[in-house]
């Protein structure tokens, strides 16, 4: 008995699973989910703020009036009535959309996977922001692309860097971006950058994937036009009801031109035949009268207050050499620490002090970001945010002292 493999299938796995492995950070999140830990880690919407009576009424009426449809298989593209409601959500930000150009997906996350399936061959280059949404990286990575990482700053993706890459001869298959209240960076792409990006990609015939989960969670400032509204032919738009209603219903969508759309629908049907009719009809019903607006306003107000509390706690408690972004909406503050601090290793000490965050390395495919952390202000109540930032601030201060003593 020579080789003793604890996994008899070790030789059988597809190459694309190579990046799927256990991790220390993931193990620490198991501790971080304990109630005594203030978690700034997960971007979880404050669903407690939704009026339970209202949601109960919606679910009840769907079952009472349409159970024959709700409990049945449905169409791969999603119910037409729901697609109309989702088009209406897009109109809130001034984006015209035809329900016929839309496929409803299991959260926008499934749309990312389907796009990978439809557009990417192994080794294909794709452009993503640096940092980029970790869920998009996981979804795309299964299709083994090569990442071109385009830096961002307070005005979003630095489009000049993308252009430089194109001049170097790079030909990304797509450009993936979260223009509004970026995850994890919290920044919003400026109008000028949007215009540059759209025209650059149009000329180069590179489709843009615009992921806009947070657009309606704006705390202040003017609504920026979506990329889709600027160039419908060349922009694939992804939306979700996770932040305006509930992530539990798993309803997201993609809007694309007919060629892409048809393949997305076929890929969607191959993956799961159709979404959950029950959840989709609940969502349609929830969006069918105006009460969702006041619910959302309350949510946005909650998030705005939490952001304010986090920003002032950061200013008070974080070391002078740390910097962070000031989001005008969404869920996240992105912190840059002095280079000697290592956020993946620091997480254990943070959890020990009952506070958690996501280490910056999660958001770069190449292991960068060790001095960055993402703080989500969406979920913990205000007093917990204060306590959590205080704990983190004390930790950072202690670490700074330790560093000084180590470096003599």
């Amino acid at each position, binding site marked *: 008995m020579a080789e003793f493999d*604890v996994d008899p299938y*070790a030789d059988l796995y597809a190459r694309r699973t190579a990046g799927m*492995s*256990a991790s*220390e950070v993931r*193990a620490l999140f*198991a*501790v971080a989910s304990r109630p005594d830990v203030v978690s700034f880690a997960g971007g979880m919407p404050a669903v407690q703020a939704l009026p339970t009576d209202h949601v109960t009424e919606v679910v009840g009426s769907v079952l009472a009036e349409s159970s024959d449809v709700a409990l049945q298989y449905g169409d791969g593209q999603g119910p037409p009535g729901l697609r109309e409601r989702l088009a209406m959500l897009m109109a809130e930000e001034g984006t015209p959309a035809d329900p016929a150009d839309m496929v409803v997906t299991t959260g926008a996350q499934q749309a990312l996977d389907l796009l990978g399936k439809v557009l990417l061959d192994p080794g294909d280059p794709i452009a993503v922001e640096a940092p980029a949404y970790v869920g998009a990286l996981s979804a795309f990575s299964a299709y083994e692309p090569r990442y071109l990482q385009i830096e961002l700053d307070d005005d979003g993706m630095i489009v000049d860097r993308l252009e430089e890459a194109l001049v170097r001869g790079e030909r990304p298959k797509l450009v993936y971006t979260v223009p509004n209240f970026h995850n994890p960076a919290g920044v919003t792409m400026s109008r000028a950058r949007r215009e540059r990006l759209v025209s650059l990609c149009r000329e180069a015939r590179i489709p843009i994937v615009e992921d806009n989960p947070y657009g309606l969670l704006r705390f202040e400032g003017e609504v920026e036009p979506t990329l889709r509204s600027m160039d419908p032919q060349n922009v694939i738009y992804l939306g979700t009801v996770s932040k305006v209603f509930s992530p539990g219903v798993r309803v997201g969508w993609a809007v694309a031109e007919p060629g892409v759309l048809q393949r997305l629908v076929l890929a969607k049907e191959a993956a799961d035949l159709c979404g959950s009719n029950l959840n989709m009809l609940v969502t349609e019903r929830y969006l069918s009268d105006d009460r969702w607006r006041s619910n959302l306003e309350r949510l946005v107000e909650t998030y705005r207050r939490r952001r304010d509390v986090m920003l002032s706690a950061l200013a008070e408690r974080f070391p002078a050499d740390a910097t962070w972004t000031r989001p005008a909406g969404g869920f996240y503050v992105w912190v840059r620490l002095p280079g000697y601090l290592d956020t993946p290793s620091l997480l254990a000490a943070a*959890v020990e002090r009952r506070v958690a965050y996501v280490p910056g390395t999660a958001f770069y495919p190449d292991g960068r970001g060790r001095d960055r952390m993402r703080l989500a202000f969406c979920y913990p109540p205000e007093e917990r945010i204060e306590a959590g930032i205080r704990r983190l601030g004390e930790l950072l201060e202690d670490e700074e002292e330790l560093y000084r003593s180590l*470096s003599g």
Partner: protein
Amino acid sequence: MTERVAVLAGGRSPEREVSLRSGHRVLTALQARGFEASLIDPSEGPFVDNLSAARVSACYVALHGKEGEDGTVQRLLELLGIPYTGTPPLACELTFDKVLAKEMLDAAGVATPPWAAVQEDALRDLAAGPVLPRIVERTGLPLVVKPSRAGSAMGLSFVQDERELPQAVMNALSFADAAVVERKIVGPEVAVGMLAGTGPLPLVEIVPRSGVFDYAARYTPGATEYHAPARLPPEIASACQAEAERAFRTLGLRDVARADVMVDGGGRPWIVDVNVSPGMTDTSLLPVAARAGGIGFEELCERVLRLALDRA
């Protein structure tokens, strides 16, 4: 009559997840062996009350890391008069703390790589930063830096260049209040399992596909190849076995344990780690060693539990 027992797993250490995986497997195994077994997580609800209410005749300790491996839970169980699997409190405390364990092993002449401890208090209060270069003079390069009190290779880093040492020490100190800086032995790595009342278990040779036996290599099925028995010449294998047994004796371990041993170019074994609560997950080393020795997982769990029940 079926015996009521509890499997203790979970806890609030960074190894919570690993422990829950160990615990659920042990639980299923003991139930299959006819025990009325339940799982108790010391971090969920009032532990002592839960334990008393469960009215068990013994506990299987499947906790890893702080509290479960450092003698804390064992002391409580002693007070409550509940027999438990594994090592008693003081030996747990000595073994879990790598600084104390290395001192003990050194004193007893057990081979453990040249090392030094860097204590956080020494850095903060005694301005000990300037000793780092001395450590390198003493141990040589390359180095392994690990937290004094942690498991599963958490917080562990390798240092090739002296300039990387401060960062590696800081990383380790995120998990514990002292870092062990140790000469990295280059050569085959083997795990030696101990199961009381059973002869020596076959050695398990560890070959991580990435080259580094880190957290991912330990807990991703397929990320590491195990060879059992290890592909070592018999005299070197027995030397590993003998060195590990000396370590177990020196530290006062009971029932089950695991030692990680590195074999250098000259065929000399070095003890690099000793565990009082060896992992029992689907990728863990002790179950692999037992299986190679003809002891299936259920049988292994029952034998360990019976050692505790016999103390009742």
